[in-house]
C-alpha cells in the first residue's frame, strides 16, 4: 500500500494503524469521488412477499459492483430512518462533482445489464424461508454471486448469470440456529474476520437490510443471531462467531427487534471487545467508505472555550442540550437547527465508513452546533461489559479519532445493566477511573442516555450525567414542567442541567420548551457547560453503588 493510498484511506485509518490495534475491514478507496456513478432507486416496499426481493438483488449487486470502484449508490425514500441518505446525493454531486446516472425505479434489468458482470452467477434464496435471505447475502459476498429469488432467475439468466447455489428447500422447517449452523460450517472460515454483519432490525414480513451491500462487498459472514439467553442455541453460535472475529474488529448492523434487545446484543459484543456500529439499515456504505474527504476539507469543531480556559459560573441554571443516536438519523435537517446551542454525538468511525457524510455535517453546521465523541469509545460500546485487559487498547483507538475530528468531550452510555426505564446506567468508580486515565486531554465526560447519576470532577474535568431525557412524544408543556421540577429539586446555584434529546425531536421544539422556562436559565454550548461545571461543583460526586437497584427489564 503506497503512502498516497494511505492518505486516501483517511487519516483516521492511518492514525489507527499507527496504534497497531484496530482491525478495520480492508477498504478499497479512491483518490477522489468518481466522475460518474449509478443512482438507482429502491422500491419503498420492504415486505418479503412483495417488493423486498427487488431491493435485495439491488443490494447484492451494489456490494459486488462496488468492490472494483464506487459505482452504485442506492436512492432511498425520504422517510428512510437514515435521513442523511438523500442529502448526500446532492452533496456528492455539488461538492464531489459526481455526475449521477439515474436509473428508473424498478428497472432491475438495466441494473443487471450494466453491473451484472461483477457476479459469477446466482444464489437463489428460498421464498418460504426468510433466514435464507441472510444466508444468501453471506454466500453472495463470499462466492461472488448475485442474490435472487426464483422469480428473478430469468431476468438474471438473460444477462448470462446462471444459478450456482440454490437454497430452495434446503432449510424447510428448520429453526434459525440450525440454518446458521450450516452457514457457519460452510462459510465462516472463508469470511471476513474484521467484520461481522448483523441483519436484524425489523422481522417477520419485513426486512430492511440497507447495510447488506457493505457486508457483500467485504465478504462478511451475516446473520441475525440472538444474544438473548432465552435462545440458548443461537446465543451459543453467536458466541462462537464473535470469539472468532479479530480483536477490536467491527460488528456492523443491528440486533433483531424480535429476538433480543439492544442492551443484550451490545453487551455481548463488548464482552469480546468488539466495536458495534449501527444500524442494519445504514445505506450505501460500500460506496461512501471509498470516498475521501475533499482535499480542501478539515474537520473543525465550534469550540466556544479553549481547553485551558477558566470561566466562572454565575448563580443560575445552566442547560446544555445534546442529541445522540447519530446525526444521520436525527434532527440535523429538521427545523430549528442553529436557534440554540446544541450538541451532537459524532459517529467517529464514519471517518472511514462515511467520510462524505461527516464532511456534509461539518460544512452545514451552524455556529451553534457542537460535536462530541461517542459512544463510549471507538464505536458503540458499554464500558462495564468490556474486559479489563481490552479497555485500554480500545480507548487507544478512540483517541486518534477524537483528535482527527477535533472532539474534546467523550459521551458514555452503558445499557449492560438495563436501560433508561428502570435499569442502571451508572458507572462504577473503576470505570470512571479508567475513563479519566485513558482520556487525559478531554475537557469533560457525559454519561447516560436517559438520566443517570454518575458525577465527578477531577483536574477541572467534570463527568456529568444527563439530568433530563426529552422523549419524542413528551408534550411541550409537560417537558417544560419537568425541567421546572428539576430546577426546584436542585436549588443550589449554579445548577448544571444536562439534557439528552431523543434524535427525532426537532431543535425548534427544544427551543420552544426552553423558552417556557423562567429567566434564571441560560442555554450554553456543551463545552462551555463543562467549563462552567468545573468552576463550581454544586453536584455531588457519585458512582454506581453496590446497593443501587439493577433491573434488566428485559
Amino acid at each position, binding site marked *: 500500500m503506497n503512502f498516497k493510498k494511505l492518505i486516501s484511506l483517511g487519516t483516521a485509518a492511518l492514525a489507527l494503524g499507527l496504534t497497531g490495534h484496530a482491525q478495520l475491514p480492508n477498504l478499497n478507496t479512491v483518490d477522489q469521488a468518481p466522475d460518474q456513478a449509478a443512482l438507482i432507486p429502491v422500491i419503498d416496499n420492504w415486505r418479503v412477499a412483495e417488493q423486498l426481493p427487488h431491493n435485495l438483488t439491488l443490494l447484492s449487486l451494489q456490494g459486488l459492483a462496488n468492490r472494483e470502484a464506487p459505482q452504485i449508490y442506492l436512492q432511498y425514500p425520504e422517510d428512510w430512518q437514515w435521513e442523511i441518505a438523500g442529502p448526500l446525493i446532492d452533496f456528492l454531486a455539488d461538492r464531489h462533482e459526481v455526475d449521477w446516472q439515474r436509473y428508473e425505479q424498478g428497472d432491475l434489468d438495466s441494473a443487471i445489464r450494466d453491473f451484472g458482470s461483477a457476479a459469477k452467477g446466482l444464489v437463489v434464496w428460498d421464498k418460504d424461508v426468510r433466514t435464507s435471505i441472510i444466508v444468501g447475502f453471506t454466500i453472495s459476498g463470499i462466492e461472488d454471486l448475485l442474490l435472487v429469488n426464483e422469480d428473478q432467475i430469468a431476468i438474471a439468466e438473460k444477462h448470462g448469470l446462471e444459478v450456482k447455489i440454490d437454497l430452495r428447500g434446503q432449510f424447510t422447517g428448520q429453526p434459525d440456529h440450525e440454518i446458521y449452523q450450516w452457514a457457519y460450517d460452510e462459510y465462516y472460515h472463508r469470511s471476513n474476520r474484521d467484520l461481522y454483519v448483523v441483519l436484524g432490525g425489523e422481522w417477520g414480513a419485513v426486512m430492511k437490510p440497507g447495510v447488506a451491500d457493505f457486508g457483500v462487498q467485504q465478504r462478511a459472514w451475516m446473520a441475525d443471531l440472538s444474544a438473548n439467553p432465552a435462545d440458548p442455541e443461537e446465543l451459543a453460535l453467536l458466541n462462537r462467531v464473535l470469539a472468532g472475529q479479530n480483536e477490536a474488529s467491527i460488528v456492523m448492523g443491528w440486533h433483531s427487534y424480535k429476538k433480543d*434487545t439492544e442492551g443484550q446484543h451490545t453487551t455481548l459484543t463488548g464482552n469480546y471487545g468488539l466495536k458495534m456500529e449501527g444500524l442494519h439499515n445504514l445505506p450505501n456504505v460500500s460506496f461512501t467508505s471509498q470516498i475521501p474527504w475533499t482535499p480542501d476539507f478539515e474537520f473543525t469543531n465550534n469550540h466556544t472555550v479553549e481547553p485551558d480556559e477558566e470561566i466562572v459560573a454565575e448563580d443560575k441554571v445552566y442547560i446544555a442540550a445534546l442529541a445522540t443516536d447519530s446525526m444521520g438519523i436525527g434532527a440535523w435537517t429538521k427545523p430549528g437547527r442553529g436557534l440554540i446551542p446544541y450538541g451532537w454525538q459524532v459517529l467517529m468511525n464514519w471517518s472511514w465508513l462515511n467520510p462524505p457524510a461527516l464532511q456534509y455535517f461539518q460544512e452545514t453546521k451552524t455556529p451553534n452546533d457542537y460535536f462530541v465523541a461517542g459512544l463510549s469509545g471507538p464505536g458503540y460500546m458499554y464500558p462495564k461489559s468490556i474486559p479489563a485487559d481490552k479497555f485500554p487498547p480500545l480507548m487507544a483507538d478512540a483517541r486518534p479519532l477524537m483528535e482527527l475530528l477535533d472532539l474534546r468531550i467523550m459521551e458514555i452510555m452503558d445499557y449492560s445493566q438495563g*436501560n*433508561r*426505564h*428502570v435499569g442502571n446506567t451508572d458507572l462504577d468508580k473503576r470505570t470512571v477511573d479508567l475513563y479519566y486515565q485513558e482520556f487525559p486531554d478531554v475537557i469533560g465526560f457525559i454519561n447516560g442516555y*436517559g*438520566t*443517570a*447519576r454518575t*458525577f465527578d470532577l477531577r483536574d477541572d474535568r467534570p463527568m456529568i*450525567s*444527563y*439530568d*433530563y*431525557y*426529552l*422523549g419524542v*412524544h*413528551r*408534550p411541550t*408543556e*409537560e*417537558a417544560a*414542567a*419537568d425541567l*421546572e*421540577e*428539576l430546577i*426546584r*429539586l*436542585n*436549588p*443550589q446555584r449554579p*445548577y*448544571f442541567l444536562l439534557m439528552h434529546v431523543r434524535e427525532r425531536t426537532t431543535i425548534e421544539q427544544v427551543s420552544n420548551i426552553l423558552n417556557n422556562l423562567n429567566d434564571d436559565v441560560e442555554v450554553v454550548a456543551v463545552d462551555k457547560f463543562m467549563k462552567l461545571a468545573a468552576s463550581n461543583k*454544586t*453536584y*455531588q460526586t*457519585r458512582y454506581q*453503588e453496590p*446497593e*443501587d*437497584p439493577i*433491573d434488566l*427489564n*428485559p
Partner: protein
Amino acid sequence: MSVTQRAFRASLFFVALATASLSFAHSLDTARFIGEWQFDRDQSTDLSPWSRCLLVIAQDGDQLTITRTLRGGRRTHEDVIPLDITKEVNVVPQGWWIDNRHIGAYSPHDATKVIRAKTLDDGKLLRLETDLVLETQQGSRDVNIISQYQISPDGDLLIVTDLRSTRPRPVVHVFTRVTE
C-alpha cells in the same frame, strides 16, 4: 392538673385517635374503588416512557392495595402501595420512584414513604398525602405529593390527580373500569 382531669384529657385523646383511625377504614366506599382500571391515554397527562398502565385496587381484610403495572414496549414495572386502612398513617417501602423517569430524581436506598389517607365525599374520594425523599445530583430533597383518587358519578371512571410540591403542573391520570 388533678388525676381526674388528666384521665379525662387522656380519654379525650384516645377517643380522637380512635375516631381518626376509624375515619379512613369505615368511611371509604371501597366497593366503588375495588377492581381493575385501565389507563386512558387520551384523557390523561403523558405517561411516557410508559404507554400503558393497569391500576388494580384490591382489599384483603384491613389491607387495601393499590398496584400500578406500567408497560412500555417489552418493559414492565409494578408499583405497589399497601395501605392498612385501620391506620391513618402508613409507612411503606418506596422502591423505584417511578412517577417521572425523565428527570434525574431517585429513591434513596431502603427508603420508605409516609402516606396519610383520608376520605371525602361520602367515601367516594380517597386522598393520599405522601411524604418522601428523592435524591438528585445536589443531594436529598423532601417531596410532598397529594394524590386524589376520585370515582365518577357513574362509577366507570377513576381520576387520579397528583399535586407534587416540586412540580408546577398537576398530573392527571384517567382510568376506565375494566369490565368483564
